[in-house]
């Protein structure tokens, strides 16, 4: 039971990373993207392939997963970001499905639907982080989430955070302020993609095997739900949302009711939660974080140039 609890916590952490990425894209950039599953898969397979076939260590594959996801983020971002709203959602959804289909069919590299097994466990300073003994792995995931949180929080308060806030509120006005909206949108997309790639690496190291079936459209939808539930434009809320959604999705197993409650129940529950949220708390549980960009300037009065 405790073991199962830890497993949910680990998955929550991995999803929290993806939700942080989604929050940059959707919460800050205001772009409805449904492609986190694609980047998640790319990160997982980068780690899986490099560790099993090239004999790399898990840690060496992390920057590669990061870079490949970022590159795909750029490749997807450039052509699709002239689309808005539903159209962007459809285009990005397509990308996630393309990734999964490529993984399914590129037998020589990905071993097709069978996936890749026997991924070596991550080793740090001679200590093997064994996913079966979950504590160590949980600590590692939490460290990753904290690092991502701190970095992205800084980003939100930076020039880029301000630019994205302006773009989200009004693109035409933002342009008139001298903000290059394409540049900042693509940046947001790349960052969101790359952190999902890292989440993918962790997923591969945790499950020690990857199959294309893991990276379905539902993953993207869940990540989006996490961000919306927690509150858009708030990284704490994204992490909170990830934990809540994960616990809900394992609710039947956790309470030992899986024989009574059908597995489809969780999808009904997701839908119900979203509808309820839209009616009574559209800004999410925590709501948007009020970001003060220039604390210093408040007290300044005149002064020389």
């Amino acid at each position, binding site marked *: 039971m405790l073991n199962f609890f830890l497993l949910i916590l680990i998955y929550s952490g991995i999803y929290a990373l993806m939700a942080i990425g989604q929050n940059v894209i959707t919460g800050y950039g205001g772009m409805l993207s449904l492609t986190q599953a694609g980047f998640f898969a790319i990160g997982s397979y980068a780690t899986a392939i490099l560790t099993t076939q090239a004999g790399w260590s898990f840690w060496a594959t992390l920057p590669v997963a990061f870079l490949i996801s970022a590159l795909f983020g750029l490749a997807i971002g450039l052509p699709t970001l002239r689309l808005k709203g539903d159209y962007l959602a459809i285009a990005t959804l397509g990308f996630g499905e393309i990734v999964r289909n490529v993984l399914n069919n590129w037998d020589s590299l990905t071993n097709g639907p069978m996936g890749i097994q026997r991924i070596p466990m991550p080793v740090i300073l001679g200590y093997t982080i064994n996913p079966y003994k979950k504590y160590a792995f949980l600590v590692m995931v939490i460290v990753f989430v904290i690092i991502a949180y701190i970095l992205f929080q800084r980003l939100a308060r930076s*020039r880029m955070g301000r630019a994205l*806030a302006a773009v989200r509120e009004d693109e035409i006005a933002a*342009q008139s*302020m*001298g903000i290059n909206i394409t540049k900042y949108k693509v940046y947001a997309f790349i960052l969101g993609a790359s952190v999902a790639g890292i989440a993918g690496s962790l997923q591969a190291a945790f499950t020690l095997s990857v199959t294309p079936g893991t990276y379905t459209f539902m993953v993207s939808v869940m990540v989006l739900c996490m961000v919306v539930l927690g509150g858009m434009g708030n990284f704490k809320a994204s992490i909170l949302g990830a934990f809540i959604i994960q616990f809900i999705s394992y609710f039947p197993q956790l309470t030992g009711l899986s024989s009574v409650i059908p597995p489809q129940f969780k999808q009904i529950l997701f839908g119900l939660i979203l509808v309820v949220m839209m009616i009574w708390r559209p800004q999410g549980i925590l709501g948007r974080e009020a970001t003060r960009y220039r604390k210093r300037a408040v007290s*300044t009065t005149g002064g020389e140039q």
Partner: protein
Amino acid sequence: MKELLTIDDISVSYGNIKALKQVSMHVNQGDIVCLIGANGSGKSTLLKSIVGQEPLDSGSITFDGEEICRVKNVGAKQGKRSKILTTDLIAAKGISLVPEGRRVFADMTVEENLDMGAFIVRDDALIAERKESMYDFFPILGARRRQKTRSLSGGEQQMMAIARALMSGPRLILLDEPGLGLAPLVIADIFEKIALINQQDKVTVFLVEQNARMALKASSEGYVMENGRIVLSDASSELLENELVRAAYLGE
């Protein structure tokens, strides 16, 4: 007097509809120039093409001696790929647009909006100084600096949009219907401010308005646009006396 903005023979179309037909005009440094015309005559399209949001079919636009928009491959049938500077780069050159309908960042406070207007300014002390002078110039904004812009009245929002545009320290400010949807007294107030900005800060103003009388009274040069063409141009005081203008735009 020096020509700050020169529009040379530009045409713009939306699909088959010609929105601007061989429009030429110029704005001299230090002037207030107005463009009047009815709904759908192409006024807003002209402003959009100045800031690089509508590609040109022909002609070019020059700001302070530097070409900011022109048609690539003149003569080739690639018409629509014409831009040479994007909107953000044009803004960085010193052209600031107060868009039609104000387009304030409604969920930000007044202060944050002004900060946003100074996005291209890297000097924090200068930004703080400009903000203070905006609060002096528009006292109502100073009083509401911590308030969400959404809660401001239409006139206050318009003043904030103008203040925001001034934060980048522009040489030319483009105003797209600053009087839209506002009470006459508020409009008079705003036009007074515009005149002051022009005199005190030496900012050149290009004003697009439907309210012809207000615009002509406030400006030194005027252009009249009809169906995408400039049909009249003269000193504003002359236009106020012009028979055609009086009949069509001043309702006399």
